[in-house]
């Protein structure tokens, strides 16, 4: 027993140590850029490896905006899908459909990227883009021209990748709602829809939030698929139909061909920023969940 405890303690400590080591390594390797640019690095929007000018803002913007839009679309879609799968169809059909949705999560991200290039990009260029410009073009975020690869395209790719995660977590959360809770509301004269909105979803909320946070983490860190469709332009475009770039994507694209030591250091600092963003999201998720549990 004692041996086992020491054994597990060693493992736990070495994992913590590994995370700390990773963080220190990232910080040490980013030091050259930190010394040269200081805080300007995160607020400067010019990224020019040739002139050795490095500002991270376009990538921070790209990462946050694509993930945010993806959540905006994926959350209602996933909750709707989970409600449909658990409340409106037979368990057998639900099993089959859930399986199909979960398969999407298992597709390698490079394959989704290929699908993005051959299907989604032309679709954005020929259908979605012109439609948005025509009907919503008065809003600056929907102004042309449309090439296909864009922030919006990236956001849609992320949406496809996180819908299965959020749907599956929401389904699990809904399935934990006790029958007695739902029957309590039915007995008061509630319709099926009222039971869902007043009992099922509120009861399942902590689990749903957990799923959303997991999806957000996945969206922020996603690299391959989004690199292939976002256009890889280090800019902060006013329009969502224009190309952009994300932290993960620029690191993957430029690291192997970094032009100088400073360039390499700048890419590592982007990695550090990405790391910090994910940690902050995780902490927020924990805080929200703790509040939810205390409340419920």
């Amino acid at each position, binding site marked *: 027993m004692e041996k086992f405890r020491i054994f597990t303690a060693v493992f736990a400590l070495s994992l913590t140590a590994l995370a700390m080591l990773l963080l220190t390594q990232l910080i040490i390797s980013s030091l050259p850029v930190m010394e040269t640019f200081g805080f300007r690095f995160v607020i400067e929007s010019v990224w020019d490896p040739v002139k050795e000018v490095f500002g991270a803002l376009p990538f921070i913007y790209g990462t946050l905006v694509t993930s945010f839009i993806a959540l905006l679309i994926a959350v209602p879609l996933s909750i709707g899908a989970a409600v449909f799968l658990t409340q409106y169809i037979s368990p057998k059909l639900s099993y089959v459909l859930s399986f199909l949705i979960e398969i999407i999560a298992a597709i390698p991200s490079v394959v989704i990227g290929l699908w993005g290039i051959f299907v989604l990009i032309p679709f954005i260029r020929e259908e979605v883009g012109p439609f948005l410009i025509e009907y919503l073009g008065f809003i600056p975020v929907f102004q042309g021209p449309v090439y296909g690869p864009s922030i919006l395209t990236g956001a849609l790719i992320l949406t496809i990748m996180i819908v299965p995660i959020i749907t599956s977590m929401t389904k699990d959360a809904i399935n934990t709602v006790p029958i007695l809770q739902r029957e309590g509301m*039915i007995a008061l004269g509630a319709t099926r829809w009222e039971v869902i909105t007043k009992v099922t979803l509120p009861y399942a909320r902590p689990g749903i939030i957990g799923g959303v946070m997991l999806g957000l983490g996945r969206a922020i860190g996603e690299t391959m698929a989004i690199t292939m469709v976002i256009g890889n332009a280090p800019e902060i475009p006013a329009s969502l139909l224009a190309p952009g770039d994300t932290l993960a994507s620029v690191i993957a694209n430029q690291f192997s061909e970094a032009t100088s030591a400073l360039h390499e250091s700048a890419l590592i600092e982007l990695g550090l920023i990405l790391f910090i963003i994910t940690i902050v999201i995780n902490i927020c998720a924990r805080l929200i969940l703790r509040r939810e549990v205390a409340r419920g």
Partner: protein
Amino acid sequence: MSTKIRIKSLNGWFGEKQVLKDINLDIEENSITAIIGPSGCGKTTLIRCINRMHEVTPGARVEGSVLLDEQDIYKEDPVKVRERIGMVFQRPNPFPTMSVLENAVAGLKLKGIRNRKLLAEKAEEVIKAVGLWDEVKNELNKPGTSLSGGQQQRLCIARALAVEPEVLLMDEPASALDPVSTMRLEDLIYELKKEYTIVIVTHNMQQAARVSDYTAFLYMGELIEYSNTKELFERPKNDLTERYISGRFG
């Protein structure tokens, strides 16, 4: 006295298994009717057929009719039926995401009442009606699940009363409660019969004898005997009833 509910040739199934067999039972208005019988005999199923909750269970099925004021509830909208026939469950089930006050008026909100003052007044009225007000008046904003078991069950009764039903169905409402809470609950049920028609399931015969006016004895899905409570306990006509109430089985 008039008949509030008339159960006619009622049969109930779970899948292929028949659990209610040709039940015929008339329930008096403003009285307390107890349903007793050994566990698994179909008490819960029978009571759940009276507000169309039985059919909520997947695979469950009903045949026959239940007349409320001579109207067959199986020909009406179940949602409307459940507004007229409230239900209290075997285990207290307040909604954990709602406060004590919100729990009390959850059913009213379903009816579209939004006026906060009106809701607060109604909540106070029904929480007082179940004798809970003095205990919870300073905790109205806490989650409904923060109360003790007995308080939760009375809150659930308050929640059912707020909808202003005509009939109140209770499925072993005291089975999860301690003796003191049980006594208080019985007193409350006795009070409530002035305004409501009450059907209570219990496997506790003393409880049935204490609170009810009429008692129905159910055995293996069949109604064995039904009469005035005093008579059923003192002079049972059926041999099975006699054996059951004298504690020789079940």
